């Protein structure tokens, strides 16, 4: 039988209701037992998400650098290409290691399913990895021969593709988490997308900045620091927005759990306040202490990982808390009109 999408009339305001005598939800559970099963994901998945974000955004920044001023951003281009080709290889390894039947990893490409970020994400990631390797080939072929020129030219074209697929690779992972029933991930899909995108750009800019500083190209490092600072500021807004929306959807129990607190420490402090302070001080002191820029960049990178890892663990915790799920799964939290994809600020 063909898969059919059953459409129902849009429910009355607030969704279908129970007989009136059951009243409002007052925290009932079934002997406090979990109502959901948590994903089995561990550090391999959070590292993969972090790595694809970092590599994807690095390739996008490099593509912009290549278009603006190729000579000036030679180093950025080279570093992004190597980072992303190695990163995508490691990422693929992490993904396969995460499977419970890894020898069947190729079944991931058996179908393409638009309702599954795990499915279309594999294609985005595969394309990104391939284009990244192609772009890296351009770094390996110097010389004046026709073949060398062809390789370099196709590497430059691949760079644009790697930048575009990089945008997808670094953000689809937010959809991967949001499109589950795990309450902590499901409660703030838009904000999660903003968080992952801003964090990806921030950590990529920070990593490339570190490398430029290392290579003595201070001015490039300064520009990348600004990008990292801007992305971090945007990230803080997104993180605070996510926090508020989770509060509105009844998930305080998760935010206040040890896992929720650890996420806030890692994301808001290490990945937010610390780097912003370091970057600000660096500028205020007229860049006399390069260590400040380095500290800022390292904090951004660490924060990027802690965001992914902390969000993952807080999600696992939320799946095990029946009250958190039941508060979230109330009619008032149902999407009001599911035919429209709203991109504006969440309600």
């Amino acid at each position, binding site marked *: 039988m063909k898969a059919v999408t059953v459409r129902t009339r849009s429910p009355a305001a607030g969704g279908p209701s129970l007989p009136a005598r059951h009243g409002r939800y007052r925290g009932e559970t079934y002997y406090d037992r979990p109502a959901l099963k948590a994903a089995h994901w561990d550090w391999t998945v959070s590292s993969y998400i972090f790595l694809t974000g970092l590599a994807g955004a690095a390739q996008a920044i490099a593509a912009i650098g290549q278009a603006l001023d190729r000579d000036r951003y030679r180093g950025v281009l080279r570093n992004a290409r190597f980072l992303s080709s190695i990163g995508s290889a490691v990422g693929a390894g992490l993904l396969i290691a995460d499977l419970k039947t890894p020898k069947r990893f190729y079944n991931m490409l058996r179908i393409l399913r638009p309702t599954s970020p795990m499915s279309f994400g594999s294609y985005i990631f595969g394309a990104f990895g391939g284009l990244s390797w192609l772009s890296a080939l351009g770094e390996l072929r110097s010389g004046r021969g026709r073949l060398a020129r062809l390789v370099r030219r196709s590497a430059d074209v691949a760079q644009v593709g790697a930048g575009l697929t990089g945008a997808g690779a670094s953000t689809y992972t937010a959809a991967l988490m949001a499109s589950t*029933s795990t309450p902590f991930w499901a409660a703030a899909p838009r904000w999660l997308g903003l968080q992952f995108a801003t964090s990806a750009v921030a950590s990529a800019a920070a990593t490339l900045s570190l490398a430029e500083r290392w290579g003595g190209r201070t001015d490039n490092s300064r520009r990348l620091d600004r990008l990292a600072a801007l992305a971090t500021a945007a990230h803080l807004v997104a993180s605070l927005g996510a926090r508020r929306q989770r509060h509105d959807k009844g998930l305080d129990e998760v935010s206040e759990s040890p896992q929720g607190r650890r996420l806030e420490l890692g994301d808001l402090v290490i990945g937010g306040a610390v780097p912003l302070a370091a970057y600000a001080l660096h500028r205020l002191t007229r860049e006399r202490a390069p260590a400040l820029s380095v500290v800022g960049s390292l904090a951004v990178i660490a924060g990027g990982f802690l965001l992914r890892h902390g969000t993952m663990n807080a999600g696992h915790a939320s799946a095990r808390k029946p009250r958190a799920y039941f508060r979230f799964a109330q009619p008032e939290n149902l999407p009001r009109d599911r035919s429209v994809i709203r991109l504006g600020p969440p309600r």
Partner: protein
Amino acid sequence: MDQQLTPYTTEAERTAGVRIEPGKRYGFFTDTTVCIGCKACEVACKEWNQLPAEDMSLTGMSYDNTGALSATTWRHVAFIEQVRPAQDHERDDGVPDRWLMMSDVCKHCANAPCLDACPTGAIFRTEFDTVVVQQDICNGCGYCVPACPFGVVAIDDCDGKAHKCTLCYDRLKGGLEPACAKVCPTDSIRFGELSELDAVARERVEELKAQGVEEAYLYGTPDAPGATGGLGRLNAFFLLVDRPEVYNLPSAPTRPSQRIGAALGAGLVAFAGLAAAAVTLLAGTRNGGGR
């Protein structure tokens, strides 16, 4: 479609009065008001599907020592022992102390989140409108597990594949009623065509209401609690007499894939915005900013 694939009377016709034909929609109607908690369904399911026993210890919370659905437990009888605190016994509000029992199972959702999530195509919709995991394709990515809004499907660490109720796909193919429904001594679990089950269920609610059981309602039929948020309907649906949460069910579950657009869209917009900012910040030929 050939209506008479089987010229003889099948077993399901004799045991459940149901003729099983590809292309029709089948499911379970579980009427919890007649469940006696005997767990025959759990046993029959394990026997037919050759599912191993699990942890043999006692939970200590109620007569429910099964605990939850799992990769090797596809029917789970929940016991809810509602004994009000002593002081409430003074109040005569007509609600007695009571035991509620419910045989939980995979809901075989119309728009199944596990199927939406499955990247390999291992999970598919059968010709009977049920949802089944193909063991020879599943690679154990585990994404169906957090996708399910009811905590049903699970990975078995022994074989690294996802498992759940198949609504006895093999039995249906052979014209047999699913094992749990066949064995249920009170007909709390009824197997049949959805349109017929819906009618039976609606009638039963009316009957109960006429008997004064005002709190009875259906969970999982179209536009009822449980069939919310784009799930369409649950092919395995229930008659309940207390809030869904009491039975470990969510009031208003959602179809997770509906959140893809919001997360991905917002992410890409933010990414594009920062890329535009990067163009400005990285442009310029001279070395700016002092030294």
